């Protein structure tokens, strides 16, 4: 599957395309298939997201999991600071990245 990601223009937060909006949680990302160029152009122009792009992912029981480790680090947060990730209460969250 392909999902869209970028950074929030104002805050720089990593965000994921939900089909109608942008979410900080990769679990909310939807498969955009191959027809994503129009979404990228429209969303960049609307300034809801900065430099969005498409990445490969696989659907799992926990939702979309980006194919590349770099995008998984983006999705969770720094593995060396669990307190700064999106799942600070889950000590095992870093395993999802690796």
């Amino acid at each position: 599957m392909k999902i869209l990601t970028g950074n929030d223009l104002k805050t720089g937060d990593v965000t994921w395309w939900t089909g109608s909006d942008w979410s900080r949680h990769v679990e909310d990302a939807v498969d955009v298939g191959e027809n994503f160029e129009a979404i990228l152009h429209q969303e960049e122009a609307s300034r809801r997201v900065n430099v969005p792009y498409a990445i490969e992912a696989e659907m799992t029981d926990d939702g979309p999991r980006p194919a590349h480790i770099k995008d998984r680090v983006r999705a969770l947060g720094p593995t060396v600071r669990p307190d700064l990730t999106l799942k600070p209460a889950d000590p095992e969250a870093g395993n999802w990245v690796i």
Partner: protein
Amino acid sequence: MGDISMYQYDKYDQQMVDTRVAEFRDQVERRLAGELTEDQFKPLRLMNGLYLQLHAYMLRVAIPYGTLNSKQMRMLGHIARKYDRDYGHFTTRQNIQYNWIKLEDAPDILANLASVEMHAIQTSGNCIRNISSDQYAGAAADEIADPRPWAEILRQWSSFHPEFSYLPRKFKIAVIASDEDRAAMRLHDIGIQLVHKDGELGAKFFVGGGMGRTPMIAPEIRDFVPADELISYAEACLRVYNRYGRRDNKYKARIKILVHELGKEEYTRQVEEEFAHMKTLGLNPPVEELARITEYFADPAFDKDASDDLDLSDPDFNLWVDQNTVAHKQPGYAIATISLKPKSGIPGDASSAQIDLMADLAEQYSFDEMRVTHSQNIVLPHVKKSDLYALWQKLDEAGLAPANLDLITDSIACPGLDYCSLANARSIPLAQKISERFADLGRQRELGELKLKISGCINACGHHHAGHIGILGVDRKGTENYQLLLGGSAAEDTSLAKITGPGFDEDGVIDAIETVTDLYLKERQEDERFIDTYRRVGMAAFKEAIYG
């Protein structure tokens, strides 16, 4: 002029920085309003040190030649607390980075920095970056002159220099003034070593060094440039590079490639020709200006009666003094290094509370001065020996007293894949695991000086080429893999490390490091450091131990 032994902005410096803040505030407003696209805005934000990294915007703040006063340090703590996530990351270029900056806050942050004579200008882009220097400058017992006035003159010359704002690639300059190189001088685009010749102060020039994907050691191109012609000679070096540096290929655009391809002799010939021309133009800084700047760096008011006596009866304090302090030029004083490398810690990270504390301690014990080192530690350059115990106790309470300077756990690590969009592998977890594997201080001291440097990609921000032991993280079919390198040095015996062989996973490379250090202990003779034994024994024996 104030009481602090460091440069202070004049009205021109302040106006330049304030004007830039106002300009950037307008640019941010236009970006947020949609009047600028990201393609238009990106070069503008990068000129102000604002990157877009893995998790957010990242702001890199310049710390000129690593020198800070307590007011500036407190501002860095304030920014960490108010605008970031309560910490900052001191870098291998003596700067600080914040990892969680909001675009809308960036102008206010720059205004805060300007209020304490700081900025983020030229911390990105193909320009002359922050000038780096010896962290012991102005305090070292072995320096022949203070390199800071020259670093400051170079800073002023290179700031907004119209001719050098769009170089083929970024450009880094280091200035030192002792035979012992603590600033990785020969791994810079230009390395300048102040020297005396026949009683006159001048400089040796080394040009074309660097790390990255094509590491090179800068060759010496001039053994003496009179000090008052130093800027003109640097300008001649830059002019030749600016004219002929490769703009067609980013990976061949650094000056090291030009010097290598032209050859040292031909590059030098062209520089000398340019220099001869420049001398006719009268571009050397006015003598009065050199004197004005130098005056700022006068020694602080040392206590001439300060005693060298030190009560070392506390064994932990004794270890810290032995490992983390070095000789000061002034009797009764020492240079103390605050290690930002605790067990399981993140090299170079400091919380805002720790940043505030370091500022307080500098004010109380070090004539209000601090230095950031390229090894990602903080130096208090002028501590009276009689104050060392009280200082150490306060550092120890705050977790800032690891007695590991230059030991295996004092590792350099780039932010790696945990933060950096260029990285291929994580660096910090390796530094943490190594600090745990080698946690025993007795074992570390048994190993002695051992510079371990970790980069998460070939750009080499973690200086792996210059590590006695280096680690390079790579992407191997989507998983992190680590190459082990041996034999590098960033010191006066500069050398480039060589890859041992096939890479390892995270645990595998740490096991390999232990194998390497075990072999060193077995093979070392007398007082040999790790690097000495490696050079004597050679790579083959280490490869055999690692791979069988």
